[in-house]
């Protein structure tokens, strides 16, 4: 029993409750409460990453297991959970700090921070949850908060995007609920660790395959993988910019990719067919996402399409590791592929949130998202231009930046495992990504100044809180390259990789058998 685990849910949930009350008393108390509680959560996550190793369990309500069979809800912190917690809370803190200036133009700021903290509470709870229904409940908390946040602007586009997002999100949630019902029917338990044990010993393969297909469809929709991607560009480009950076940077990973990894590695018996399906879906979203992105002229829409493509890299890396493991291939190559996928997950969180924050800063200054109406902003907004250049280079895989190393690891793993087509497509996607970001840089920051906005509005650099978040993320873009060094990697990345590599060992570790 570790009594500190529920703090990850209690702090944001309590803050979400207190923010509207405090905001009634003191005007700015609510927003500072949100920022400070997120800072505390990031501190807690960093503390757990570096100082407290090993899996730990918290039994909610003190329900001890009976004869080794868990009867209560578990909260489980292992290498993968803490890795995700670090990403969620760090990006959450920077986005909230950025919102301090950015959200000034909106009304009902305290409600915005309430929803923001609810979303954080949902994601933290989901990542920590060791019980599949509890995981579903936390997923819905995060998803409902994000539906409301997408519609926060309540203009025509925002409402339409939010409605689309809600209908597709609703369908995916119901598919997941159906899968959970079937799982309970088959195994008689909801605890993830117990499920892992039960499903490995006795399970009907056809039934199990049906459940896994439902789960891929459900969580594939949440991750916006290729055939299910239609809602993402609308939702992520219509939300306020700090929320876009949370949705693209964190939410699709926490409520989509994380659950896919957890379920298909640790709960179900590893199967080559499922891994192959995931790898194909990942490759398709990687290639098609980037091809759709090239033609976009809306700044945030372009970034949203790149999210589909970059999440493809994450899924491909992890699914490749799963394919190798399922065939009892080289463990070294499998761990390299998984490490590449997880490394890219964190890198994508950093550079994609930075790019969305840049887009927000540009929109804040110029008042438009259409790249054809911009140009020459580099002189007026030097910090935004510099940080966006570093993020663009990171996402297109230019050497000193973090994106290069994670893509390189995925490609090396693909070559070593003999998946040459995959390696080629990963390189090809990276080149197209570079082309589309060169276009973005040229038309927004380095082209000639357009007359359409130059005469009417005075373009100024963004205020301090926005600059601070962007500069920190730009520094992280460079600093995360250090994760490629083995000794640094062992502290942060390796526990997460090992959590997936242990596969069915998850059940035994958590139940302590």
């Amino acid at each position, binding site marked *: 029993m570790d009594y500190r685990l529920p703090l990850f849910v209690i702090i944001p949930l309590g803050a979400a409750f207190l923010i509207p009350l405090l905001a009634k008393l003191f005007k700015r108390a609510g927003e500072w409460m949100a920022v400070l509680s997120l800072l505390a959560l990031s501190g807690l996550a960093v503390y757990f990453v570096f100082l407290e190793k090993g899996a730990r369990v918290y039994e909610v309500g003190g329900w001890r297991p009976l004869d080794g069979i868990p009867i209560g809800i578990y909260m489980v912190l292992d290498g993968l959970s803490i890795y995700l917690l670090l990403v969620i809370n760090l990006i959450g803190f920077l986005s909230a700090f950025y919102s301090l200036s950015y959200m000034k133009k909106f009304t009902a700021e305290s409600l915005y921070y309430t929803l923001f903290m609810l979303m954080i509470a949902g994601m933290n709870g989901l990542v920590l949850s060791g019980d599949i*229904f509890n995981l579903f*409940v936390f997923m*819905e908390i995060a998803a*409902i908060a994000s*539906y*409301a946040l997408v*519609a926060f602007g*309540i*203009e*025509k*586009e925002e*409402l*339409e*995007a*939010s*409605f*689309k997002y*809600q*209908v597709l999100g*609703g*369908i995916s*949630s*119901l598919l997941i*609920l*159906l899968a959970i*019902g079937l799982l*309970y*029917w088959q195994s008689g338990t*909801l605890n993830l660790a117990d499920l892992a044990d039960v499903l490995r010993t006795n399970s009907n393969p056809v039934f199990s395959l049906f459940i896994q297909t439902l789960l891929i469809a459900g969580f594939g929709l949440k991750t916006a993988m290729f055939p299910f991607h239609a809602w993402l*560009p*609308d939702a992520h480009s*219509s939300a306020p910019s700090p929320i876009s950076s949370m949705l693209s940077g964190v939410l699709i990973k926490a409520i989509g990719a994380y659950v896919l990894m957890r379920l298909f590695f640790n709960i179900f018996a590893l199967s080559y067919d499922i891994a192959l399906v995931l790898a194909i879906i990942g490759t398709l979203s990687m290639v098609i996402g980037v091809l759709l992105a090239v*033609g*976009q002229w809306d700044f945030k*829409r372009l970034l949203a399409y790149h999210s589909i493509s970059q999440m493809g890299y994450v899924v491909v890396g992890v699914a490749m590791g799963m394919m190798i493991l399922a065939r009892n291939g080289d463990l070294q190559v499998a761990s390299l592929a998984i490490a590449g996928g997880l490394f890219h997950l964190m890198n994508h969180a950093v550079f994609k949130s930075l790019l969305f924050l840049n887009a927000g800063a540009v929109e804040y200054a110029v008042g438009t998202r259409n790249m054809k109406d911009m140009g020459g902003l580099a002189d007026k907004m030097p910090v935004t231009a510099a940080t966006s250049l570093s993020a663009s280079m990171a996402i297109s895989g230019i050497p000193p930046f973090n994106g290069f190393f994670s893509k390189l690891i995925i490609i090396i793993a693909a070559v070593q495992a003999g998946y040459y087509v995959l390696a080629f497509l990963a390189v090809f996607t990276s080149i197209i990504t570079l082309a589309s970001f060169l276009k973005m840089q040229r038309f927004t920051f380095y082209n000639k100044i357009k007359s359409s906005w130059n005469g009417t509005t005075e373009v100024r650099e963004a205020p301090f809180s926005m600059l601070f978040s962007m500069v920190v993320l730009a520094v992280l873009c460079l600093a995360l390259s250090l994760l490629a060094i083995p000794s640094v990697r062992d502290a942060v990345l390796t526990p997460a990789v090992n959590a997936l590599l242990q596969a069915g060992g998850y059940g035994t570790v958590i139940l302590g058998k």
Partner: protein
Amino acid sequence: MIVYLLCMLLFLIGLYGVLVKRNLIKIIIGLAIMEYSLNLFLALIGYVRGGTVPILSQDLKTSVFVDPLPQALVLTAIVIGLATTALLLAVAIRIYKKYHTFDIREIKRLKG
């Protein structure tokens, strides 16, 4: 067995409504039907023929109980469903105020 099939049929009717109907309110009703079919399904999983309420008492005549866990799940699922439906309706009403229609063919500013 037939009950489960009817449950599945209800789920598919809801899905049909979501996919085919062009009125925002009808889409929301479709989602609600899907959700209730799943609630019914969860309750069916826990049903045991001839079972009684799983409460220990002095004068217990039978040892056959229904499974209480899915019922707890259904309660939670109903609350979540309430939240999603309320939010969907709120957004639908806002859309009506902006576009003066519930027809999705008229509401298409986002493309590509």
